[in-house]
């Protein structure tokens, strides 16, 4: 997989500091699953956290904390859920062709999801996660475009299948588009293959045209 669009540093910092809403964190984790370059940068962002942990003003633990802890060390570890075993995880990822974090969350391949038609050539699957913003899969037919929109917050898109083009360039499977309030765009599917992408936001989008505003309640992003 050749990846040419990556995350903004600010996004990787948010990921490392644990401040992303769940959907965005799953999206970031999914791209990291595919992209070594971003993995290395995420490791650096983790290391910033490590440095800050060293630097923090310590808060004393209760007097018997250590003794309690040492008593716990020999207790048997609670049985792990089978789905968290790494082999099972990667097997699931292989079967579905999806990155592990997303495969685990969906539990089935893209083609077996209950897609909902939300407009001409556009289908949606809502991951139904909590938190601010929304996390959806969009399946867009060849030649179809998403209405022109800008953003109130951050919007992350991970291409899972196919490709699209917009004002920012061409995005293929594995690529991410990492945009915010400064960007307005209108993605259009640019090959004969449909495009499936995961989109996570931390605030609602702003659709610019009348068509867009009409579509918003349906797309619900």
């Amino acid at each position, binding site marked *: 997989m050749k990846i040419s669009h990556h995350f*903004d540093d*600010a996004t990787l*910092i948010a990921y490392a500091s644990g401040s992303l809403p769940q959907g965005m964190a799953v999206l970031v984790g999914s791209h990291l699953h595919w992209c070594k370059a971003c993995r290395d940068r995420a490791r650096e962002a983790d*290391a910033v956290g490590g440095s800050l942990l060293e630097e923090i003003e310590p808060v004393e633990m209760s007097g018997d904390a250590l003794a309690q802890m*040492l008593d716990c060390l020999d207790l048997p570890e609670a049985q792990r859920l089978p789905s*968290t075993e790494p082999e099972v995880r990667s097997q699931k990822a292989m079967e579905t062709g999806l990155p592990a974090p997303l495969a685990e969350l969906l539990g089935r391949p893209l083609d077996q999801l209950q897609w909902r038609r939300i407009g001409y050539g556009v289908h949606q699957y809502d991951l139904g996660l909590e938190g601010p913003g929304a996390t959806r899969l969009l399946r867009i037919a060849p030649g179809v475009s998403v209405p022109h929109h800008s953003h109130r*917050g951050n919007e992350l898109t991970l291409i899972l299948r196919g490709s699209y083009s917009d004002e920012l360039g061409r995005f293929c499977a594995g690529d991410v588009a990492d945009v915010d309030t400064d960007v307005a765009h209108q993605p259009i599917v640019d090959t004969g293959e449909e495009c499936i992408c995961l989109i996570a936001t*931390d605030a609602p989008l702003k659709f610019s045209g009348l068509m867009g505003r009409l579509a918003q309640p349906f797309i619900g992003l």
Partner: protein
Amino acid sequence: MLEDEPEGKKVTAAADLTQSKQKAERENWTRTLASLAESRDKQLFAQLFTHFGPRVKAYIIRLGMPPATAEEVTQEAMLSVWRKAHLFNAAKASASTWIFTLARNLCIDRMRKEKTQEYELPDDEVDPDTRDYGEQAVLEAQMKTVIDTLPEAQAQVLFLSYYEGKSHSEIAEQLGIPLGSVKSRLRLAFSKLKTHWEGRA
């Protein structure tokens, strides 16, 4: 004569001394953690607990957990240090970074209540990285010095992100600045840290 040396030089020398002491200390913790996997020595674990426990607790409190819960989650985090020590790879992270990620993941789990989240970085398939023991710790000790030199505005957004787990928009709201400014400050801070990182790596 020593007295004739300019003041600045003495200060630098003192800072260098502190830095190399911190560096040695960090390498030391990384080595301790790495040997814990082999030895399963409870004395070593007690040392790690005494050093990192109060730091993890402080971090969790800053993330907004009440102190009593923070103490409990800290115990949980330190128990994972003991149980997962065999997964620690000194070529990839220092002890403090690894423990930071364990504590962070536990807090995220707690706050979301559901464990659907993959938050560990997947391992690279083959790791040709044959870096020396604890070299990552050395780089990170240097990074800490760079964090200290960041302009206030950049350090502030970094602290709000990591210590308080605030999102970009929450920081923007709190500081009364546009979202774009929060992100550009974070980018600037990170690129300074990286320049340093890459320069020495």
